[in-house]
């Protein structure tokens, strides 16, 4: 889709939402709720976090309404965006019904209406592309995924914890969106990334963006990349990390890590989940659920009365070596898209970039 990029004045954002609604999509978008930007069902522009600014640091998150006016998307990602929409935190997979000594199985597929997500960021699109591959043969995931239409926004205000420029996944969204917005003072530069997106865009009947507007959008993106301070160490992290499994830093970080699993819960690429059997009280049927799990949990590596990873040291090492190392072989890329969530939402303020650097440095 390399069609002409359009300009949408601020006043027309409402029209975009209206067109999506008219096309049969429920809207999910960013909203300020209980001090954090979360993605929730919405119906009008008024619910978007206009003028909200955030501030993030290791173990610290604040989001609040700033000055009057301001922009709609002048903040970096909150705790969660796309992952719960496609890979539900907990859902039934199938049901087993017992009757007259026989067993009947039926798959339970989620019923999700066509859903347009407003304000998706580049890091989450990159993470979604990974999860699309992981769950390619998974009916429930695909049933949800098919319903999504993604309206992305290029990041103009990364948080201090963001490092998508270093992983190559942002701040500009390069693929995976249906529509892409660049927010300027007076409005948005809009581009389509799919047939569906192009269809909506055509309905809006916008004028072409002018060269000044395109330059301004490019400059914002350039700045958003340049202000990022954190980076992952360069080179073949899989080889380096797996060569340093006895590094003393693992012991050191284990002293600080609480094994709370916040990092894996907020990480947009983590896919671990556990199965759970939930029998009906009268024994007539059972529901088989799956629920997000984490390599930090007690039971994750449990087998026959034995835990492969009995301590925080081996669990933190699993998280980091999988995320930055093992993923390379499984998916042909790192499992980290640089969203910085695990840094912000870690109660101990552990910084994945700092740990990776410490482990890669010095003697194996």
């Amino acid at each position: 889709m390399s069609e002409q990029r359009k300009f949408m004045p601020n006043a027309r954002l409402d029209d975009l939402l209206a067109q999506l609604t008219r096309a049969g999509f429920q809207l999910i978008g960013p909203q300020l709720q209980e001090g954090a930007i979360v993605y929730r069902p919405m119906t009008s522009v008024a619910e978007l976090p206009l003028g909200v600014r955030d501030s993030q640091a290791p173990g610290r998150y604040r989001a609040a309404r700033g000055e009057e006016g301001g922009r709609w998307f002048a903040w970096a990602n909150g705790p969660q965006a796309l992952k719960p929409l496609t890979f539900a935190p907990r859902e039934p997979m199938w049901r087993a019904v017992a009757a007259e000594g026989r067993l009947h199985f039926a798959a339970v597929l989620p019923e999700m209406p066509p859903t347009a997500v407003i304000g998706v960021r580049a890091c989450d699109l990159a993470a979604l592309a990974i999860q699309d591959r992981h769950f390619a043969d998974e009916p429930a995931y695909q049933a949800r995924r098919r319903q999504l239409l993604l309206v992305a926004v290029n990041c103009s205000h990364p948080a201090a914890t963001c490092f998508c420029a270093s992983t190559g996944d942002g701040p500009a969204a390069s693929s995976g969106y249906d529509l892409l917005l660049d927010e300027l003072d007076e409005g948005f530069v809009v581009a389509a990334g799919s047939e569906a997106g192009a269809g909506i865009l055509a309905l809006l009947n916008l004028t072409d963006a002018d060269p000044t507007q395109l330059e301004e959008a490019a400059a914002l993106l350039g700045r958003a990349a340049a202000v990022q301070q954190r980076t992952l160490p360069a080179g073949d992290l899989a080889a380096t990390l797996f060569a340093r499994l006895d590094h003393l830093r693992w012991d050191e970080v284990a002293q600080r890590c609480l094994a709370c699993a916040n990092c894996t819960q907020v990480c947009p690429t983590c896919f671990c989940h556990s199965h759970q059997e939930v029998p009906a009280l009268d024994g007539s049927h059972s529901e088989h659920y799956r629920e997000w799990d984490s390599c930090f949990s007690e039971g994750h590596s449990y087998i026959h009365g034995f835990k492969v990873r009995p301590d925080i040291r081996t669990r933190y090492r699993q998280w980091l070596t999988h995320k930055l190392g093992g993923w390379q072989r499984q998916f042909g890329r790192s499992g980290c898209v640089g969203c910085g969530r695990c840094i912000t939402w870690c109660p101990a303020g552990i910084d994945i970039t700092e740990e990776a650097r410490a482990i890669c440095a010095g003697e194996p």
Partner: protein
Amino acid sequence: MEAFPLESNPALPHEAEIIERIEETPTIFTLRLRFTDPALHQRYSFMPGQFNMLYLPGVGEIPISIVSDPEDEHLYDHTIRMVGRVTRPFAQLKAGDHIGVRGPFGRGWPVAQALGQDVVIATGGLGCAPVVAMINYVLRRREQFGRLTIIQGVRHSADLIWRERYEAWSQLPNTQVLLAAGQAGPDWRWHTGHITACLEDATITPESVVMMCGPEPMMVAVAKDMLLRGVSEERLWLSMERNMQCGFGKCGHCQVGPRFVCKDGPVFSYHEVKDLLGKAGF
């Protein structure tokens, strides 16, 4: 022969009937199963070393290796050791009961590589179903394989199940059986000590294909011995065990470094996994 996955939704079990329950020892039993849907039963095929997820309502699922022969189309055997909360209710099952089954999952033993070759099968610990499937496979097609060496180490001689089978196998031509028990009872005519004690008596050619199953330190010890005898890393194979919940590379529990035991294994070549094999935490 390619294994045939059951249906398009690999997470969904299918009803199977227990045709027979065989008590192997007080804690080990075999369930012979048949899918109740005849078409499905026909279509189903597997290779030795692959596993199924067996499901009991209200209890959950367990990964169990298929021990019967791929050509025994009438029944699928699963030998189960009672080890905890989930396996115990399976022990209560009897002929005529119904359970759920999905599979087969994973990569089995390197049958094609082993054809025409000497085969060494080494196991440690309690009844190791994945290799039993392979022993049966070789014995059933005896002329297609070279010399067969069966090596097994157990902690106590009383732990050895199917002892009469080992006795019978040891009488077969071109077949060597070597057993070692850490502690031996009165009627033990085999080695006493670690599994490596009986390796000394083994005649192993560098062209052998070696298949192992059991505790990882034991497999590492046997692999090192075989490497010294000139068997290459690509001819050493081992079946691994990890927490498995999905069986097809989704849930993440079975990962060993970059590998999914359920999907990339459970049978791996030594070459593939040697870096992390026996490394605490993986």
